[in-house]
């Protein structure tokens, strides 16, 4: 019975065996989850944001819990793209799960250099993080800068043959406009939303709780905002939209798919229950079966208006 149910979805040229991906920064480089489940079950693994060279990140305190959410200001600590390729990628190859590298650059050129390096590997795609709210120095808010985004996508598109996803944020500018812009520039898909700029103050010390002052809000608290963004953007672009923000279970995932998302990413939930992704995949299958829906693609954008 389950065999007859199709849960494959397509993101650009990339076929995913199911629509569940891990959200960047919440799944490390994947390997830490080997002890919890078979990584081969995932639709895709999106790595922690990688830059050309290793980045130390922000000083601690780097996170703080907020009502039904959390703020993080990791500051994109990462081992650098080359170390990733030499140390992590070989260990990930054995899983039949596409690896998508989340890329962060301080300058336009850095994105392009990283993409160039990835061209020679067998990662399945790149996700361009142009919307991280947590980098102070050089932390260009590309998310509001259409020209920079155009440059990045155009130049990568020229050489890079595989899937390009652009990750958007609701922090600056109009997310629908930016999504349309990314589509025009040649992106294969957009993923949204990245975390939302937030802050917390310790009233005892009068200091910001996070050393970086600002952090990005994630978790269930932001789900309604993410869902509205996905719904709006899905109506405006033809390329697939990947929904992310506060997904904790298959019901949340369904909301995003009904709103128009072709796939979903699960972030903060991985911290709370490391099995969230596999549970969502299983539960989605069960839901489809129960409701006699034999193709998950029928759920995408299935929202009924009026």
């Amino acid at each position, binding site marked *: 019975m389950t065999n007859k149910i199709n849960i494959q979805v397509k993101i650009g040229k990339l076929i995913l065996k199911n629509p569940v991906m891990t959200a960047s*920064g*919440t*799944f*490390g480089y994947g390997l*830490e*989850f080997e*002890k*919890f489940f078979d990584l081969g079950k995932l639709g895709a693994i999106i790595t*922690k944001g990688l830059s050309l060279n290793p980045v*130390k*990140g922000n*000083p*601690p*305190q*780097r*996170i*703080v*819990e907020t*009502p*039904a*959410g*959390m703020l*993080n200001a*990791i500051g994109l*600590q990462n081992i650098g793209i080359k170390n990733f390729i030499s140390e992590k990628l070989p260990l990930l190859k054995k899983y039949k799960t596409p690896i998508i590298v989340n890329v962060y650059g301080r300058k336009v050129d850095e994105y392009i250099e990283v993409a160039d390096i990835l061209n020679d590997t067998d990662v399945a795609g790149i996700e361009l993080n142009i919307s991280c709210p947590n980098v102070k120095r050089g932390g260009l808010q590309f998310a509001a800068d259409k020209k920079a985004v155009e440059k990045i996508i155009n130049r990568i598109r020229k050489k890079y043959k595989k899937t390009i996803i652009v990750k958007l944020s609701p922090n600056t500018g109009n997310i629908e406009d930016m999504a349309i812009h990314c589509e025009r520039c040649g992106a294969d898909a957009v993923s949204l939303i990245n975390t939302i700029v937030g802050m917390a103050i310790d009233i005892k010390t009068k200091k910001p709780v996070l050393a970086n002052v600002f952090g990005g809000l994630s*978790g*269930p*608290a932001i789900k309604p905002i993410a869902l509205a963004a996905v719904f709006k953007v899905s109506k405006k672009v033809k390329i697939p939209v990947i929904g992310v923000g506060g997904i*904790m279970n298959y019901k949340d995932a369904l909301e995003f798919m009904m709103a128009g998302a072709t796939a979903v990413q699960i972030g*903060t939930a*991985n*911290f*709370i*229950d*490391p*099995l969230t992704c596999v549970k969502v995949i299983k539960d989605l299958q069960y839901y489809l079966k129960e409701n006699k829906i034999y193709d998950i693609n029928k759920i995408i954008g299935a929202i009924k208006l009026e």
Partner: protein
Amino acid sequence: MLNQGKVVFNRKLNNTIYYLRIKVPISFKAQPGQFINIKVSDDYVPLLRRPFSIFNHERGFIDILYKVVGNGTKKLSNKKREDILDFIGPVGNSYVDFFYEDEFKEKNIYLVAGGTGFASIHFFARWLLRKKIKFKLFYGAKNKKEIFQRFCKNFDVLIATDDGSCGKKGLITSFINGDKDTIIFCCGPQTMLKTIQSIKAYKKIASFESYMGCANGVCLSCVIKINKGKEFDYARVCKEGTVFDLDDVIII
């Protein structure tokens, strides 16, 4: 790693400190210094798990000793006998990874515990006791209520409290005289660890706490600074730690 266990008891020891025992499968194994990351609520508030050192572990159960400081620990304090607790662990390295029996043979082994830092030190003390290795325990807290002498029966212990209501009066660190033959294992507030950094010793090993997101090495939230010549590196307390060579750590 992902575990479930039934609450055997969850006793209130004083105003704010609880002693919780969880039944675990006999196959469960943990080392002193390791911790578990407990899901304290089925709701989204609190959202994240809460980390606690293993206070004691024998075949079939683990104990934790915890202080109610906020909503998460309050939730934990409401758990009742037979409730099922979902936890991840054991997590992290161990004091034992830094214990070289031969090398330490002729040395004085000091264990230093401050406040709830007593939890992981207690587990290590029991480990040493079982191995018949001699040590001295320095145990400090705010006041008598926060000192748990009942758990120190078999230890050679020196107690100090801020107000002198139990043992000596003053900071526990002021009663430690180190020398080149002293080996210190410690756990407690950062200020205590910082003071210990300036105590003379052959080796100083410390277990650290920090604000944790995943306790699984992926969120990179729990980092502390590690000396690296002129530079520094961030190390994850949940992965490279919680136990570090104290001299390597830059405490701010």
